[in-house]
């Protein structure tokens, strides 16, 4: 095996370090000019392994110009790595400049980087796209020797991953000799990840280097004292136990699943924290300065615990963490392992982790996840084809850099893994969309963005188009956010605009660990003051909850259906399942249990499908559509990760018919027309593709909405050109990710002829959690008008024309939660608000 050259050998020796085998393996592979994917658990010296060959190369043959490009999904990670790398480079006196390039890089440094690039540039996919859209990109990247992609598992399979793959394909054209190095956490199926990284889209062109994981993690299940909750996802009942665990360890990360949960858990801990242990909080909506303070305090060991969301998921080093607590269900085996890996950054000792399920189903899920970890099984979702919206943005970006021939660009993009199977028709339609909108009606000849010259080269029309592109680069579509500013003070973070729209002056909410009172709305900022009275609400954010992975869902199903596998379950859960067997029956492993029962003047239908929340939302839509056709008067439905529940005016019968495979036919078509999920998907697709403008935070809005409402565009386009490329992209995206149609199709096929229908006289034990689940979807369409009519009639009858009808209506109808109710149950005056836009924005 190869050894380290000087001065590296000396530098390692001076620290008493020996190079790890995978670090040497990467050095060796680089010597042979190979592309490599390194799979290693957190704390394995992965990043250094990625950079070492470049450092060695530059130490042996110093040169000017860009040598190594490092791309990370997080700005903060790029900054962190730059810091960690600069130290050894200075200590060894290497002639290497290391700089970061992100959205935060000041203008003068950007200019300097273009004139005189550093040897090592650390950046993000968005900033890389921007660099590649510049006319001088060929000069800047011509001498590139290595591309390092960090946290590759977190990028591949997302739209940012699509974008980066396209950028790498362009770099493959500009610098054919550049080696690619992917750094990734352990994944179940490395094949797709290799293909994603590969310069040919073929996995075999990327060598796989895998390090064996250290000791297996040790899991503890922590239940709350007293009664085990039926529902809820917050896990607040376990706050005393969590605090006790924190007291018993040196440094703890308390991972939660959503930002709202972070606020609530943090508040619950501080309510009990009589010893005033230093406990902090970290989530993506807190003001960046506050986040940096917490990170610094954590790194310096001044905190005993930090309550964190996925914003702490990725590789940044947080110092000497010796305990990880996961509050709420883990939702996926790989995700759990990564979080657990944050404890004890040494590979040879087992990580200690505590799982704190919030309800009974989550107990089963936690047990299923630990069993999967013991069995060494990870969950991997199959790769999905690259988004056409991302391609549209890329095509325009490339046109901004230089004129192109469609044939050549097609050849280039199909070398990117996610686009290897892209059809020429789709490519041409995307190019046409970029050119003139791609409409059947030739209306925009004068407004084309690209024009073709005599040789068939496509040129961008003018500099304004390029400016517009750069303003809208990126694949993360933010829901409109507003800054939260203390009256006469600083900014503490941001909340979604729609949440603010549900507030009235004097209302209070929990944010950044304090109760804030809403004072007024200023352009682009919510003005608040500290304190306030009454039950605070908690801002919830769109797309906050991760769906349960297929693999974990299957394990949960297997445990539930087989009493012999209940031994690891705590007694209250076993009793719950025994009761279920008595009152109804256990959901079968492969068939489908459907229960119907009357309650509160409505009929409920509960299906134990275990396909994850996204699939259930789609299924709910399809089944209620069919119920509508059968005259059952469906009123609404809710999907949890485990079951889906619908309620209707009349008793559902002929269950086989409601779950027949052909609901994917007619009902599907009808649903596509109205689905709010499709609308949300279209909004993202249209924004990324550049049809509608990105929302720029802080941009002042005239009181009236002059931004284009994507719903209106969607309606008009659907009626007049249903096969438009963006509608095709929307359907394709919805079919895989957002709506999980494939999962539903597999389910319906699997349970055909194996549906067990139980008619009960009341709710069954397993159905209780679903009935108290929040976040219901309403059956739109015809039923909406009927409801409006009912409400109008009721109000007239009850008030005889009096005002304040909302309150009156709340009195005359029973207490049905309104759409989009926040996490904190609203016991206050009713507020009739529409559900938050739910998007997958991470």
């Amino acid at each position, binding site marked *: 095996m190869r050894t380290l050259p000087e001065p590296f050998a000396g530098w390692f020796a001076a620290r008493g370090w020996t190079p790890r085998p995978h670090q040497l393996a990467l050095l060796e592979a680089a010597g042979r000019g190979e592309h490599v994917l390194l799979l290693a658990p957190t704390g394995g010296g992965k990043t250094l392994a990625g950079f070492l060959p470049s450092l060695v190369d530059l130490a042996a043959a110093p040169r000017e110009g860009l040598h190594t490009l490092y791309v990370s999904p997080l700005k903060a990670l790029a900054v962190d790595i730059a810091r960690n790398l600069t130290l050894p480079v200075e200590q060894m006196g290497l002639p290497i400049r290391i700089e970061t390039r992100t959205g935060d890089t000041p203008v003068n440094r950007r200019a300097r980087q273009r004139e005189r690039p550093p040897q090592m540039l650390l950046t993000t996919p968005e900033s890389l796209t921007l660099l590649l859209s510049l006319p001088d990109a060929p000069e800047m990247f011509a001498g590139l020797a290595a591309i390092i992609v960090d946290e590759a598992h977190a990028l591949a399979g997302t739209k940012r991953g699509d974008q980066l793959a396209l950028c790498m394909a362009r770099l493959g054209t500009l610098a054919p000799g550049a080696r690619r190095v992917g750094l990734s956490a352990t994944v179940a199926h490395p094949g797709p990840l290799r293909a994603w990284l590969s310069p040919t889209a073929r996995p075999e062109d990327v060598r796989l280097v895998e390090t064996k994981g250290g000791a297996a993690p040790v899991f503890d299940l922590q239940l709350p004292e007293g009664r085990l909750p039926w529902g809820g996802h917050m896990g607040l009942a376990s706050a005393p136990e969590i605090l006790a665990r924190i007291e018993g360890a040196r440094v703890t990360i308390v991972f939660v699943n959503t930002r709202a949960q972070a606020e609530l858990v943090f*508040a619950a801990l*501080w309510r009990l*924290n009589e010893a*005033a242990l230093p*406990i*902090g909080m970290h989530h993506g909506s807190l003001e960046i300065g506050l986040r940096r303070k*917490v990170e610094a*305090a954590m790194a310096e060991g001044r905190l005993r615990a930090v309550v964190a969301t996925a914003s702490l998921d990725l590789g940044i080093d947080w110092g000497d963490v010796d305990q990880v607590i996961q509050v709420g269900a883990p939702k996926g085996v790989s995700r759990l392992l990564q979080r657990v890996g944050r404890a004890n950054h040494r590979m040879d000792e087992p990580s200690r982790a505590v799982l704190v399920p919030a309800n009974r189903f989550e107990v089963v899920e936690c047990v299923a996840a630990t069993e999967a970890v013991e069995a060494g099984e990870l969950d991997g979702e199959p790769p999905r084809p690259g988004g056409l919206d991302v391609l549209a943005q890329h095509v325009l970006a490339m046109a901004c850099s230089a004129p192109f021939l469609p044939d050549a660009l097609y050849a280039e993009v199909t070398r990117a893994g996610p686009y290897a199977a892209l059809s020429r028709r789709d490519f041409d339609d995307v190019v046409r969309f970029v050119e*003139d*909108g791609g409409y059947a*009606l030739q*209306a*925009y000849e004068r*407004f084309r963005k690209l024009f073709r010259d005599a040789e068939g080269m496509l040129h961008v029309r003018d500099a*304004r*188009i390029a400016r*517009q592109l750069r303003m809208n680069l990126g694949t993360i579509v933010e829901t409109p956010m507003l800054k939260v500013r203390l009256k006469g003070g600083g900014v503490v973070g941001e909340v979604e605009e729609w949440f603010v*729209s549900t507030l009235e*002056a004097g209302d209070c909410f929990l944010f950044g*660990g304090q109760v804030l009172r809403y*004072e007024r709305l200023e352009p682009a900022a919510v003005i608040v*003051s*500290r*304190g306030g009275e009454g039950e605070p609400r908690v801002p919830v954010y769109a797309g906050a909850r991760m769906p349960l992975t297929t693999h974990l869902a299957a394990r949960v199903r297997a445990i539930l259906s087989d009493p012999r596998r209940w031994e690891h379950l705590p007694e209250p859960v076993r009793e719950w399942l025994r009761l279920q067997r008595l009152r109804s029956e256990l959901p079968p492993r492969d068939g489908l249990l459907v229960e119907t029962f009357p309650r509160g003047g409505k009929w409920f239908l509960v299906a134990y499908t275990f396909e994850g929340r996204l699939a259930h939302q789609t299924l709910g839509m399809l089944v209620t559509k069919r119920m509508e056709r059968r005259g059952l008067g469906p009123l609404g439905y809710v999907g949890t990760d485990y079951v889906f529940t619908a309620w209707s005016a009349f008793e559902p019968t002929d269950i086989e018919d409601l779950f027949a495979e052909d609901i994917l036919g007619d009902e599907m078509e009808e649903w596509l027309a109205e689905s709010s999920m499709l609308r949300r998907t279209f909004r993202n697709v249209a924004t990324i593709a550049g*049809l*509608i*403008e990105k929302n720029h935070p802080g941009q002042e809005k005239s*009181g*009236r*909405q002059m931004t*284009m409402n994507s719903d*209106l*565009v969607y*309606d*008009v*386009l659907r*009626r*007049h*050109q249903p096969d438009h490329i963006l509608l095709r992209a929307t359907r394709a995206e919805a079919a895989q990710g957002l709506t999980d149609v494939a999962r539903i199709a597999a389910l319906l096929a699997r349970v055909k002829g194996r549906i067990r229908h139980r008619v009960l006289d009341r709710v069954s034990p397993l159905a209780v959690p679903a009935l108290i689940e929040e976040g219901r979807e309403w059956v739109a369409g*015809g039923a*909406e*008008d009927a*409801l*409006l*009519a*009912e409400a*109008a009639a009721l109000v007239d009858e009850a008030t005889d*024309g*009096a*005002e*304040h*009808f909302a309150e009156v*209506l709340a009195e005359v109808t*029973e207490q*049905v*939660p309104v*759409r989009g109710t926040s996490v904190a149950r609203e016991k206050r005056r009713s507020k*009739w*608000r*529409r559900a938050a836009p739910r998007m997958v924005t991470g």
Partner: protein
Amino acid sequence: MGAAPVHLAGERLMLDPAGVLHWPARRLLCVADLHLEKGSSFAARGRLLPPYDTRETLARLLPLLRRYRPERVVFLGDSFHDDDGAARLPAAERGALAQALAGVEAVWVAGNHDPSPPSCLPGLAMEELAEGPLVFRHVPQARAAGEVAGHLHPKAMAPTRAGGVVRPCFVADGRRLVLPAFGAFTGGLDVADPAVASLFPRGARVFLLGAERLFSFPMAARRAGAAVQVTKEGGGSKGEFPPPWPSITR
């Protein structure tokens, strides 16, 4: 079919669930905020929105003209998304519109988006139209009586037992009527927004558009107490747990 009567300055007006106003006594039809050619207006600025909005808007408007056979049609401003909109009308749509307006007196009230009279289309252009006790203008004025206006694109949320349902709406009190925006690409402004609510300090009725009929609800008067609540200091910072940042970062 499904139209609802309201009274304004003693006149009986019919609100059509399609979002237009009919004044039977004067055989007058009024429609607000068509924003025709909004798609091409965006296209000129680099956003190539679907070019079908005019077609869609007219497909909804022309049947109404055929049904009501008015003597006069009042376009209540912002009929075109910008001042050049009329010039950009595709030939087919221009023809269809001209044909539908044949034998009808068209009144093009100026809007903030289209202050100039539309070219190549029949009819009169005016700043506002006074007709009997009523005045038709684009932007509602602070102290008006008998006013029919547009501009605001009002929409409202109605509570139902399944939660709020949002629809474009008419807003009316005894003195003023605001029409919903009719155009295919026109969004809405919630009636709770001060821009709308301040016009109706003593409350109003909203009429939400439905497929077959309107749904009428009272709109509450602006609450007098609200302002007091905002300025009232106190309650103090008695959060149940200490603000964490100073203690951990000092």
